[in-house]
């Protein structure tokens, strides 16, 4: 089992150079594709170069693409970002499609080293209506209360319960009964 994530650096959400406030700026600046013209582990990279690299460069005018053949070495792609970070992507035995997918991931990332995100949100203005305190929304007349106070200590007001209603009914009945008895007794 891997414990790598336990020792991984953690970070909060951030965006370089206030990206997206005015407009979006692509963070990947330059890629250097290093490959071999003969070895089979560069096959996917060679296919990519033959079929897709021109389209990729046209679709992404913000990214400079370099091709660097070197004999009998494993293929790599060097990714350089606007924040100065560089990343080496091993392209050994990758298929054309896989390579394209990894380049797509690189194109979308900001170049920050991968870290566990502690929060999925970041704000500079955590509260607009004010931070809640125990005294928020408490009726202000409690400020003027003098203690000991009968009213302040009374339990919160509620509706009459069924039991109370029954008791009241019973008491009324008893009264009525007494009254009738008295009247009959006197007469």
């Amino acid at each position, binding site marked *: 089992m891997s414990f790598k*994530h336990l020792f991984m650096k953690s970070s909060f*959400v951030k965006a370089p150079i206030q990206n997206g406030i005015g407009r979006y700026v692509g963070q990947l600046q330059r890629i250097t594709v290093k490959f071999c013209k003969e070895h089979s582990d560069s096959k996917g990279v060679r296919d990519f170069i033959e079929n897709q690299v021109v389209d990729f460069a046209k679709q992404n005018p913000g990214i400079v693409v370099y091709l660097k053949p070197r004999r009998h070495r494993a293929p790599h792609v060097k990714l350089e970002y606007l924040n100065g970070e560089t990343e080496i992507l091993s392209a050994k035995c990758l298929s054309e499609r896989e390579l394209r997918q990894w380049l797509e991931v690189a194109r*979308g990332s900001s170049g920050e080293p*991968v870290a566990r995100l502690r929060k999925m949100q970041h704000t500079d203005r955590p509260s*607009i209506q004010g931070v809640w305190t125990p005294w928020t929304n408490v009726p202000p007349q409690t400020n003027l209360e003098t203690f000991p106070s009968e*009213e302040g200590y009374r*339990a919160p007001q509620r509706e009459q319960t069924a039991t109370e209603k029954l008791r009241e009914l019973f008491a009324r009945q008893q009264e009525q009964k007494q009254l009738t008895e008295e009247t009959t007794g006197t007469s």
Partner: protein
Amino acid sequence: MMSLPRRLATSLLGHVRSHITSATCGTSSAGKSASVLWSCRTLSLAPGVSSCPSLVASLRTSAAQLGSASYQDVQPDYEVVAETENKITADVVSQVNRSIADRSTGRLFAVVHINGKQFKVTDGDLVVVQGQWPPALGQQLRLEKVLLVGSADFTLLGRPVLDRGMAAVEATVIEKSLSHTKTIFRKKKRKNYRRINFCRMPLTTLRINSVRLEKTVDQS
């Protein structure tokens, strides 16, 4: 018993932000999808209203919370109560509408529903959406499911969401990348069962560009 409402009324008119008036607009008419909460800091009741005897009833909740009046005392005359409440509601709604119309609401925040999760956002925020999500890099989005919009003085609550076109929450996709590698380890004791998988979730980072109110309350 009458001393209490007088006190309440004075405190309402006073300067302290209090809890009392939460008026719901459109209670009688269906189809209106916003209700308003307005703090008393900015709500000033007309003197005529405060001296009205039925205010006792309209403020019955606060009286009840104080525990100073028994239930027999507070037997509201429902017609008068409704009238007073409607008046307060109309007053609140008009004040909210006025502040929306002359753009004096100040900074707004909104609760938006994105890809199954709710976020409280304001201008300039960053939000990370986890999992597969179609919007492409650099796209400008308008988030349509707005559950709530609030300013310093009032809150508009959707039932369950605000009308389309009422609140404008705009965002830009600034990053589409992968999370760190997460280890998924399953094991059953004494059953010789161990599975280990690794996954990296797709993450989409959004920059919230603006939160605005484009329509007044109850405007169709």
